[in-house]
């Protein structure tokens, strides 16, 4: 079937950029919203880390940090980074942009629903930001929002902020549920003729499986959030023991979602890394079906580990045993995925482009995150480590590769397709080394501090004699300074991104010589994507096939 390039008449600025139904525009809307929220999240961590390093001193750009403000900073840094940075950049940006292109069709199956999902998402971001300006200030009960702190304004001191927070998160959930319908249905049904299940690029599978995981896990939390809202607003007692309720119910509902959620963000990141590793080692993905089945197994298993977040919450220790077993078990398929990715590199013809550097860094950093999780997943050692900075370091060694490193890898890799020009490799490498080195210098001290007994969510360690030892405070200052260095190194990235839009080397259709369908069309693709819709003849990773002249073999090439 031939052409589809737009049959629309000239569109106004509003129709083309603000109220567009085009998946590529919507993807970039999600991306830029995510970037802006990342700047907010970064500002929040800058303020509270300055407070930790120099307690009681005025922070440039904020003022003196009170204990209540500290709690709000920490809470919203976590909340914003997970829901308004990681999810939109990984799933909504790359999912929206790539899925129709990679399966060879002209848009998502429900473009107007897609637009609605962004609008709801944008609204959720506004509600979240508004929570900073309501009387009492933003919610400060941690991103986990345990009651009674989150339900009782006598404890939280943020009656309006608490409700705004729940509403913002609830709206974000709705946006991603709606978006997920589009991703799943488009990938299931709109594939190019000849594209069978195992010819689908891994990143598409990853985003689809992530969407299914999200859908299945967020349901109970939505119920729980409704109950939380009713407790906050109507004085009902779902989580209040004096009224017959139980705060542990919230914990279960929250973590039943909370654990699969980390795989919801991990899977798209793994997908991005897989696409990049194969292209820049000019090698087939080692074990496509293994990757697929292992991912599905991980997804299923992820529903059975949630109480490892509750080992010291008063659950039955025998239940803790069960969850320790399942938690250690889940490290096996993830480790296998790491081995498979490394095997993909083995004897490959490696090109150290900026996206490849970030993809490799993902592997190294995520590995550290994974192995440190073992100490936390074992209920015995977790009794000591729970709620210390060790946990913070662990989840940053997983979340940072997922939501920052993999996103940068994806941006540098797909920028030529999105904007028709390449980013500067020199600036990219400066950005890369500056970010990765300083990231480790922030987080390694946190492992030590956690092991030394430093508990989380404390606004001033000078109040604790055993934690205010000079060598510990030195580590806090060191981490804070490293963080500022890391933030400064993001300047080359922003400069590179903007400059390359105008002065970057023009990229053709396929500057990286890759196989997947998005590289067969013009950069950037027009509305409608393809002048002629492709047919697919082979799987996506046919690189360096023996006997062929070229070391790549696009999916849509006849023979």
């Amino acid at each position, binding site marked *: *079937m031939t052409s*589809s390039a737009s*049959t*629309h*008449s000239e*569109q106004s600025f509003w*129709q083309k950029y603000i109220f567009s*139904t085009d998946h590529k525009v919507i993807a970039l809307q999600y991306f830029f919203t995510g970037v802006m929220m990342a700047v907010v999240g970064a500002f929040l961590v800058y303020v509270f880390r300055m407070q930790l390093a120099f307690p009681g001193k005025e922070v440039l750009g904020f003022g003196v940090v009170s204990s209540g403000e500290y709690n709000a900073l920490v809470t919203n840094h976590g909340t914003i980074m997970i829901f308004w940075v990681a999810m939109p950049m990984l799933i909504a940006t790359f999912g929206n942009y790539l899925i*129709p292109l990679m399966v060879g*069709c*002209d*848009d*998502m*199956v*429900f*473009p*107007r629903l897609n637009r609605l999902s962004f609008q709801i998402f944008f609204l959720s971001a506004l509600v979240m930001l508004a929570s900073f300006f309501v009387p009492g200030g933003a919610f400060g009960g941690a991103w986990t929002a345990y009651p009674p702190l989150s339900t009782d304004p006598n404890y939280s001191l943020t009656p309006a902020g608490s409700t705004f927070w729940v509403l913002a998160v609830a709206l974000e959930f709705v946006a991603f*549920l709606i978006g*997920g*319908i589009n991703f*799943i*249905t*488009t990938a*299931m*049904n*709109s*594939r190019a003729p000849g*594209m069978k299940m195992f010819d689908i690029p891994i990143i598409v599978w990853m985003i689809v499986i992530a969407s299914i995981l999200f*859908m*299945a*896990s*967020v*349901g*109970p*939390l*939505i*119920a*729980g959030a*409704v*109950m939380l809202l*009713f407790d906050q607003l*109507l*004085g*009902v*007692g*779902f989580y209040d023991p004096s*009224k*017959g*309720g*139980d705060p542990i*119910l919230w914990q279960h*509902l929250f973590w*039943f979602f909370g654990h699969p959620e980390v795989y919801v963000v991990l899977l798209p990141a793994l997908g991005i890394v897989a696409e990049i590793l194969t292209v820049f080692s000019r090698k087939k993905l080692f074990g496509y079906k293994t990757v697929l089945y292992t991912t599905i197994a991980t997804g299923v298993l992820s529903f059975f580990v949630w109480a490892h977040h509750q080992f010291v919450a008063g659950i039955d220790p025998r239940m803790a045993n069960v969850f320790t077993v399942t938690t250690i078990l889940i490290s096996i398929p993830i480790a296998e995925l790491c081995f498979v990715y490394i095997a993909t590199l083995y004897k490959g013809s490696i090109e150290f482009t900026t996206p490849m550097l970030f993809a490799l860094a993902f592997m190294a950093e995520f590995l550290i995150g994974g192995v440190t999780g073992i100490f936390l997943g074992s209920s015995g050692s977790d009794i000591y480590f729970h709620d210390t900075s060790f946990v913070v370091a662990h989840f940053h060694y997983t979340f940072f590769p997922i939501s920052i490193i993999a996103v940068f890898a994806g941006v540098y890799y797909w920028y030529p397709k999105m904007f028709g020009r390449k980013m500067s490799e020199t600036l990219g490498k400066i950005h890369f080394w500056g970010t990765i080195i300083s990231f480790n210098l922030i987080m390694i001290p946190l492992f030590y501090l956690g092991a030394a007994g430093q508990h989380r969510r404390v606004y001033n360690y000078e109040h604790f004699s055993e934690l205010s030892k000079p060598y510990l405070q030195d580590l806090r200052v060191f981490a804070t300074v490293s963080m500022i260095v890391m933030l400064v190194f993001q300047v080359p990235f922003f400069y590179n991104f903007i400059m390359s839009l105008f002065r970057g080397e023009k990229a053709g259709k396929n500057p990286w010589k890759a196989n997947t369908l998005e590289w067969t069309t013009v950069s950037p693709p027009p509305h*409608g994507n393809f002048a002629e*819709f492709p047919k697919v003849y082979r799987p996506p990773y046919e690189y360096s096939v023996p006997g062929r002249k070229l070391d790549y073999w696009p999916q849509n090439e006849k023979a």
Partner: protein
Amino acid sequence: MSFAQPMATRRSSTGISTGKLAVWWVIVSEIVIFGGLLVSYILYRLYHDQWSSEAAHTSLIAGSINTFILLTSSLFVVLSHRAIEDKDPQKAFKYLWYTIFGGLGFLVVKSIEWTGEITHGFVMTKSLFWAFYYTAAGLHALHVIAGIIIMAIISFDIKKNKNLQRVEYIGNYWHFVDIVWIFLFPLLYIAK
């Protein structure tokens, strides 16, 4: 500027129509929402034997009438779908509206029931049992309302012989709403 449906919507690599797939995924996500709420209720109920004194005040008559109404309305939506298959959209339109009236009847009975309960002091804050009761039944009622609205919109389309396939989709959604009630009714009205 009118919206042009992309060709992606009409492709079908699985052989199942896109709209049907999408509605099924919506149903899946709703199953876990209601599932989470109802499992929480069941666990609490098992720990709170004393709730039986509160639960005694739910109206088995109102619940039974509503069960009958919803089941009958589900029958009508099946008949509507069969009319579509028999290429009779006008008949399908008629049956869709019988379904809608069933839904409206459900809401009327519920309003009378809740008015009675509220005026007798059985409000959300009286006991956690009532909090669950109103939350679960209320969430269900919201889904009934949404279903009615969508069904009405679809009915106007099929009257003009457009988008006939959507009768099956809204039918599936309506059956789901019915099944949720089939869980709520025993939990809140029978197993006191």
